């Protein structure tokens, strides 16, 4: 009977204990796996999201897009950028808050809900305008799934949540009040035509979005916009890093960041909390698992010292009894580890749902992303746990004084 088979029989001998040990490892292992997914999850997800957007450089006034104010003289700035040889297209993006009336009601007064149709739907209005080399069409930061792109100053696309809540279809009319300067502006409503339903990958989980041209946004804001942009999106002809450097040289007071650089900045600031907590919890869960498996095995071994001494007296080598203990540890941790994977994925989806409720997190961004490296690290850590946890009980059996133990068993 080899060591693994022997270890299996030893565990099965105490099924309650063995089952609980395996379940405990499964629970701890699930948490460990999730922390490994979290450690790089945001970065991987953000990198993927940025890459899928089709734009490789983001130009902003602050150190990160969305922070530090607006880009002034946006139109001329976009033209200067678009004129650079390494730039394929430059797109201005201006964002405003909007309150959409639900159909069937009158216009709302201040903060009061609209009469008859229900409270207005809060949404983010993205207005875009840009330049491209050779006048090629520019892909907006959204994807139309029904209808067509918005053109001019009277057309918009909306997301499916607004379409459902406001009972709007393609071809319908949307009435909204936008505020481009402050939430406390009281502007007359603007009526725009819905020409398409779109997906907005950078809209937050609980955020509804509308997209249209800058002219449409200006019209909705009553012209009170100014020549400013929240962000400039750029695609490059060659290497994004070179293009970003060229933009910085052309307009030194703005920040031009490639997608990798945006991810790098986020890693140092906003995302850093999750990496830190991932590292802390990974350390704690591994230590916890080592401690508890070690205690389980040590108590188990101490209860069987007589048997082990008898096996040694019968001729079992020191190496063999040590291997038996290690095999027991491997079986408990291995079985628990296998269970921890589906459990971990289930837990990760729940934790992801919780974290995505944070304001400003794009709906398509995920905190927990499955990566092969995380799986291999998980396996490696579990192997290390099994070995380290077994060290002390292995030492007990390897240094067991056979004669003294046999004597003690008789006396005991």
């Amino acid at each position, binding site marked *: *009977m*080899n060591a693994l088979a022997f270890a299996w029989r030893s565990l099965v001998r105490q099924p309650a204990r063995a089952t609980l040990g395996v379940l405990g490892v499964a629970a701890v292992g699930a948490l460990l796996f999730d922390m490994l997914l979290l450690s790089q999850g945001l970065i991987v997800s953000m990198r993927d999201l940025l890459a899928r957007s089709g734009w490789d450089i983001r130009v902003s006034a602050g150190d990160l897009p969305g922070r530090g104010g607006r880009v002034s003289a946006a139109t001329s700035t976009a033209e200067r950028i678009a004129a650079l040889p390494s730039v394929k297209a430059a797109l201005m993006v201006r964002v405003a808050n909007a309150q959409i009336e639900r159909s069937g009601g009158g216009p709302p007064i201040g903060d009061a809900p609209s009469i008859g149709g229900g409270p207005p739907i809060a949404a983010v209005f993205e207005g875009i305008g840009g330049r491209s080399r050779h006048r090629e069409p520019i892909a907006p930061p959204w994807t139309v799934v029904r209808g067509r792109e918005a053109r001019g100053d009277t057309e918009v696309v909306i997301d499916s949540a607004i379409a459902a809540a406001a009972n709007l279809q393609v071809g319908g009319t949307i009435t909204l009040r936008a505020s481009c300067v402050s939430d406390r502006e009281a502007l007359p409503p603007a009526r725009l035509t819905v020409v398409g339903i779109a997906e907005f990958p950078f809209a937050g989980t609980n955020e509804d979005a509308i997209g249209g041209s800058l002219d449409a946004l200006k019209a909705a804001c009553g012209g009170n916009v100014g020549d400013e942009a929240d962000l400039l999106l750029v695609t490059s002809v060659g290497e994004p890093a070179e293009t970003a450097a060229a933009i910085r040289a052309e307009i030194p007071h703005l920040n031009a960041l490639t997608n990798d650089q945006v991810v790098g900045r986020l890693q140092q600031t906003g995302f850093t909390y999750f990496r830190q907590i991932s590292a802390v919890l990974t350390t704690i869960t591994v230590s916890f698992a080592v401690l508890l498996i070690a205690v389980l095995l040590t108590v188990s071994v101490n209860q069987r010292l007589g048997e082990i001494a008898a096996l040694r*007296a*019968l*001729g*079992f080598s020191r190496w063999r009894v040590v291997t038996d203990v290690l095999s027991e540890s491997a079986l408990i941790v291995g079985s628990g580890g296998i269970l921890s994977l589906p459990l971990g994925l289930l837990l990760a989806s729940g934790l992801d749902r919780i974290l995505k409720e944070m304001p400003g997190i794009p709906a398509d961004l995920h905190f927990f992303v499955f990566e092969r490296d995380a799986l291999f690290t998980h396996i490696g850590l579990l192997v290390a746990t099994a070995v380290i946890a077994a060290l002390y009980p292995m030492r007990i059996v390897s240094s067991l004084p056979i*004669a003294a133990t*046999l004597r003690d068993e*008789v006396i005991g």
Partner: protein
Amino acid sequence: MPDVIVDAQHVGRAFAMPAGPVHAVRDVTLQIRAGDHVAVRGPSGCGKSTLLHMLGCVDAPSSGTLLFDGHDVATLSDARRSALRLKRIGFIFQRFFLLPMLTAAENVELPLSEAGASKRDRQHRTKELLDYVGLSARADHRPSQLSGGEMQRVAIARALANRPQLLLADEPTGELDEATGAQIAALLDRVNADGTALVIVTHDHTLAERAARVLMMRDGRIEQETRR
């Protein structure tokens, strides 16, 4: 003259204690030859089990020389001593020490498996041994389903698995009633008659009387040796 299996010359065993060393065995000179049937008797604490453990290479002497098959036990590595115990020596304990999660057959098979016997050889030998001890019908029973006498018979079968030259028994009837003890004694006689040297540590005088040599120990020394 039959081959000498164990040659102990002036062996002693001392244990370090806080109050000073305790000499469990002192200056014992003894030879065990092939086919010997030896009983070791004496009051509690006289060093019988300690002597048995040294003869079985479970413990090493603190003084003197102990040769097993011509090899000085004190110079052997732990791995070599384990190999000796596995293939040349069989042990039977007062408390049986059967593994509770294995069946009777699996307990008997354990030393065969450890010695690297093939599956066929293991199964054949296991059946042979269980027949020998009269427990073929209980092969698939666990120790918790066996009586004390049956457990000891399984333990004897296990001890004989690798055809040892020497069988060492430490109070083999200590936890058994008189009738069952007599059955075990008869079985041990048969083992000895079949060629295995036997050394038994016992308080049981009826068991001791069956031996060809009886060693009386007191205070760690062999006080008297009687031959039948």
